[in-house]
């Protein structure tokens, strides 16, 4: 036997189709906005992170010689002696890591680390004719570099693999190429800090989307870079590692730190602004979408309140016939829950539809062709939970009011 309370709820709902549609639409709108806003914000966050990680690794190991130079003279503190060392300088200063292979071995042992590459980075002067530009030169291990940074995706012309084919090949950032007015096939010369000159041929152009990187970075093969700086075969200035989930970079960096004698840094440590921007965007997305859901909740509250006022006589007669307070709460609560379920379900579909339409809107920036959208099941689940919770509350208040109606007052007129 179908529950009589359900039947009454259903009859109330279906007898006012227009009102039902308005109520359902308000939930639909709220939930779809929640889904869309969060998909979009996650998309933006991921895009931002992707762009960031095109030139930055999750964990970076480098030689950080900073700090006060050690004063080797022992400081005797007798009353009649005064030792004074002024203008102390580093006298034995090692740039980079001469034994980068050791570092790589340590990193390889950690199972959370999925990719490792090494680089030789150096500030150099690029020259093309009279144009002189300072920039950074990255000597990269092409195979690992591609695996880690997906570099080939950002190559706009030429090929990164050509770096291994000839020792005088260079790939320029697009901004840098513009500054040097160099294009594919041109020869440019560079001068290292130590005054070594070498002519390179442009075999590719790269655009990562990060402007400052594109305007200053040139890439050559790591072996060429070692040669250029006259360093040994295991030399590298940076060893970089990527982990499975970039949010775990900090903990993993802490795990390997003790085994590495160089400075080991997770990306968050040097780039707090990225993390805080992501968090702020998330907060804004959730605040805006929750506000919309709450407004939808007020809509339902209003409609249910009207329904209760309209049906006040019916409620009184139901009570006279023996329906108790719990039945009345149930009857009206079921109505708003049904509105929440229908509206929520359509809202999820609509949210998905809007997100996938926005996903196709052309938006040309960096390596992106369309606006970024991330589809996370959690967004959909949370949208439904919030939506149902809000319709439940919005429905419960009028339902409780209905259950407290005194039938005598209404029926006596």
């Amino acid at each position, binding site marked *: 036997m*179908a529950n009589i309370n359900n039947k009454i709820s259903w009859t109330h709902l279906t007898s006012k189709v227009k009102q039902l549609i308005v109520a359902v639409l308000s939930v639909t709108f709220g939930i779809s906005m929640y889904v869309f806003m969060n998909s979009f914000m996650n998309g933006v966050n991921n895009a931002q992170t992707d762009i960031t990680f095109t030139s930055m690794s999750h964990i970076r190991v480098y030689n950080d010689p900073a700090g006060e130079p050690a004063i080797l003279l022992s400081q005797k503190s007798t009353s009649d002696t005064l030792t004074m060392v002024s203008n102390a300088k580093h006298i034995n200063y090692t740039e980079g890591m001469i034994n980068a292979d050791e570092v790589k071995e340590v990193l390889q042992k950690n199972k959370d680390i999925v990719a490792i590459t090494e680089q030789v980075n150096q500030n150099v002067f690029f020259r093309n004719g009279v144009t002189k530009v300072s920039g950074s030169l990255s000597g990269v291990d092409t195979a690992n570099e591609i695996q880690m940074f997906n570099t080939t995706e950002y190559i706009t012309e030429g090929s990164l693999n050509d770096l291994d084919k000839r020792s005088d090949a260079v790939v320029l950032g697009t901004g840098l190429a513009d500054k040097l007015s160099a294009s594919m096939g041109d020869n440019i010369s560079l001068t290292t800090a130590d005054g070594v000159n070498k002519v390179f041929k442009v075999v590719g152009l790269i655009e990562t989307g990060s402007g400052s990187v594109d305007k200053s970075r040139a890439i050559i093969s790591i072996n060429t870079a070692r040669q250029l700086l006259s360093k040994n075969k295991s030399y590298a200035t940076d060893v970089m590692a990527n982990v499975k989930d970039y949010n775990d970079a900090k903990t993993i960096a802490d795990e390997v730190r003790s085994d590495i004698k160089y400075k080991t840094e997770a990306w968050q440590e040097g780039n707090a602004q990225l993390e805080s921007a992501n968090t702020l965007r998330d907060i804004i997305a959730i605040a805006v979408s929750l506000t919309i859901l709450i407004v939808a909740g007020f809509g339902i509250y209003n409609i249910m309140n009207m329904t209760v006022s309209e049906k006040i*006589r019916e409620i009184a007669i139901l009570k006279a*016939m023996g329906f108790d307070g719990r039945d009345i709460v149930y009857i009206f609560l079921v109505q708003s829950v049904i509105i929440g379920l229908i509206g929520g379900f359509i809202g999820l579909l609509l949210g998905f539809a809007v997100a996938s339409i926005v996903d196709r809107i052309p938006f040309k920036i960096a390596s992106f062709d369309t606006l970024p959208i991330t589809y996370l099941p959690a967004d959909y689940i949370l949208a439904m939970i919030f939506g149902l919770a809000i319709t439940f509350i919005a429905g419960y208040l009028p339902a409780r009011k209905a259950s407290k109606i005194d039938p005598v007052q209404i029926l006596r007129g």
Partner: protein
Amino acid sequence: MNVSIIGITIITMGVIKNNKMKALTANKITKYFHDPETFQVLKDVSFDVNKGEFVSIVGKSGSGKSTLLYLLSTMDTSYEGNITINDTTVTGLTQNQLAKFRNEHIGFVFQFHYLLPEFSVLDNVMLPALKLKKKSKEEIEARAMELLTLLDIKGHETKKASKISGGQQQRVAIARALINEPAIIMGDEPTGNLDSKNTKIVFDIFRQLAKEKGQTIIAVTHDDEFAANCDRIIEMVDGKIIQ
């Protein structure tokens, strides 16, 4: 402790014995209205109604007759005194217990029919029985059809309650009041809104129910002719019964 429990049991049994033929007993009912100012509506009202009796309560407006009916109906619970219906003392029961009690033992007919307008005539009649859940849906439907036939509304059962005439609506309301075969049917001016022809139909139905089915009927009315044809008239003046 034991002694007092036994004492209560004996008293209860005594009440049952006394009320064997009583459908309803009101004992020293006193009620005040507090709004806008304290005013005593009912003053120590006591009376019995026997099973199968057709009683009408008459009186001028403000005499407390409707107030009394709503106390007897168990919907209004703020009073002093005791009310026993069908051997159950309803005074002091919780709202939810009272709702269940009304569902099973009391049928209501009001001046305005108060049908649920979006439901069909048949659904309206079945509603209290579906709530009571003592019979299967098929049995309830058969019983409802029987009542609709008895009250001459057969053929309209699938129509919406708002789409039939006033006299028919009032008869549907009576069918609804009868569906759970309540011990007592209470009417608040059940014919107040009907023309003389429909008034006669409704009265005859009540008469027949009391006579043939032994159902007790208590109706508040302004209609002197209606009252005159009842088994008993309880007349109220200023919150007291004058016989």
